[in-house]
């Protein structure tokens, strides 16, 4: 199977600090992979390099055969990479439905005059976006909240809405940055089922950053562990759980 996303020697330095050092990673279509590590290990920095937010100091990122390091976030999005944010970044003044519709904006094939003059093309586009957004809200279990503004949503639902919005861009790969943070046990259980359904039913490859070990170990097929910007382990959940280096990174050594 050829790789969907492949990074080689990915490195980024901020001044004297090497936040991520020689990060090599492969994910094939249809996989559900986890990226874990203690706080400050550089996981979110990896996501930022994958999605064009940060420019890597060295190394390459290939997605679907094309080199994407150096491309802007919007260009990366256009190729089919989407993500959520650790610190939630919703459009607070827009409604829940409109937030999800914004994800579908990039596929709009109408111009400004269609909307100003309300041509039939405009109405078709609105309908397409609304249907798409509503389907995904249903998928995430948010359809009852479609009319609220995003600001009014409780925390767990905000995280889910971010996922719905990212899915509306019709990505091939979705990068979830701590989707379970702040959720209770019940919500976490629901979420792990949802994440698996994203891969199984929507056919989207999933890369997951998460601190909740039960969730990560329960759904990821392959895990890579970062500590101080370096990969210290990779393998199946069982292998990771028994890896002495991982245990040391999390619990501290002698």
């Amino acid at each position, binding site marked *: 199977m050829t790789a969907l996303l492949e990074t080689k020697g990915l490195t980024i330095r901020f001044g004297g600090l090497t936040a991520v050092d020689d990060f090599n990673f492969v994910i094939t279509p249809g996989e559900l992979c986890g990226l874990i590590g203690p706080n400050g290990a550089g996981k979110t920095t990896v996501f930022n390099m994958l999605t064009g937010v940060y420019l890597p100091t060295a190394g390459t990122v290939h997605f679907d055969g094309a080199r994407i390091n150096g491309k802007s976030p919007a260009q990366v999005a256009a190729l089919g990479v989407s993500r959520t944010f650790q610190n939630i970044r*919703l459009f607070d*003044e827009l409604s829940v439905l409109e937030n999800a519709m914004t994800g579908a*904006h*990039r596929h709009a094939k109408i111009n400004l005059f269609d*909307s100003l003059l309300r041509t039939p093309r405009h109405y078709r586009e609105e309908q397409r976006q609304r249907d798409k957004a509503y389907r995904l809200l249903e998928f995430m279990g948010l359809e009852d909240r479609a009319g609220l503004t995003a600001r009014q949503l409780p925390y767990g639902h905000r995280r889910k809405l971010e996922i719905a919005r*990212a899915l509306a861009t019709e990505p091939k790969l979705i990068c979830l940055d701590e989707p379970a943070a702040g959720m209770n046990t019940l919500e976490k259980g629901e979420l792990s089922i949802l994440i698996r359904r994203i891969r199984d039913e929507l056919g989207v490859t999933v890369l997951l950053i998460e601190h909740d070990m039960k969730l990560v170990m329960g759904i990821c097929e392959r895990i890579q562990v970062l500590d101080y910007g370096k990969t210290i382990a990779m393998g199946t959940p069982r292998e990771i759980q028994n890896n002495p280096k991982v245990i040391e990174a999390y619990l501290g050594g002698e």
Partner: protein
Amino acid sequence: MLRTGAVLVAGIIGAVVLNAVLAEFIDDYVVRVINLCGVAIVLAVSLNVINGLCGQFSLGHAGFMAIGAYVCSLFTTTQRYYDAASAQYVSEPSLAARMAEMFGADLAAAGSEQLQSIAAWGFLPGLIAGGVVSALAGLVVGIPALRLRGDYLAIATLGFGEIVRVVITNIPQIGGATGLPGLPPLANTSWIFAVCVVCIVFSVNLQRSTFGRALIAIRENELAAEIMGVRIARMKVMAFIYGAFFAGVAGGLLAHLLQTISPATFNFMKSIEVVVMLVLGGLGSLTGAVVGAIVLTVLPEALRDVEREVNLPGIRMVVYALVLILLMIFRPQGIFGQRELSLKLLRRVIPGGRK
């Protein structure tokens, strides 16, 4: 499309009827204030797209107005100026007059009434040309907007407005610092409110479309918008072009309402005035922009009477400033916040109404 078309046609007919009614029953001074309100509404609603929806703080609206005003005047007004090289006064006929000449009109023999009707034919093309040239300027200003944020953008756009003003001051052919007198009084209530209707209808349509949502997304969280595939550069420039177009048209209207324009008409206080209208009404709310424009146009005029009563000349501007300060203390989000006037809001506000 049918609905938008119907609303536009109805609105324009309404403007013509309003014009006839006002001219018949209302005194000229009040009509003039109403007309100024109309121009202010176009200005505030168009700036709302840049400042309110897209969140790009622009102080360049006076610059766009000036461009629109001067371009429009070229179409309708004979430009007279002192030519230093030949040491004599030169008179350049308006573009409308030149067109008429090309079609065989004899300007030298034409009476003043005929000249006026020729000028009137130049008004609509002038307004459109003013809007288009101003929109091009919007394109030029929109590009630095991609690199600047917040205060820095405000200063850059302020600089743009000042550049326009200084450039006009130094072109003697369009009146230089003394300005351009003798513009024909073409901007009546019909014209102003017809433009008003077009501007409001288009802005509502813009706001409630995928483009409007993309603009708001940029305002709310630029990084998230970009990750969702919103083309930030294109959308920001589009907002500037849209806003500049209507500011240009409004400039053309104002010029033919005041009948005299000079660079001082379009100084940076004019830009500030429009921003204050937006902030007062509620930044990001189209309804707020309309209300803010009306309040800030009517208030200083209404206070004239108060000034006469208490016999304290100048107190008017003190009260005006006080009203603004009090509003900012007690309702910093503006009268409407980011809400729009809609049936839903009315039902909530009116006691006993359906929820």
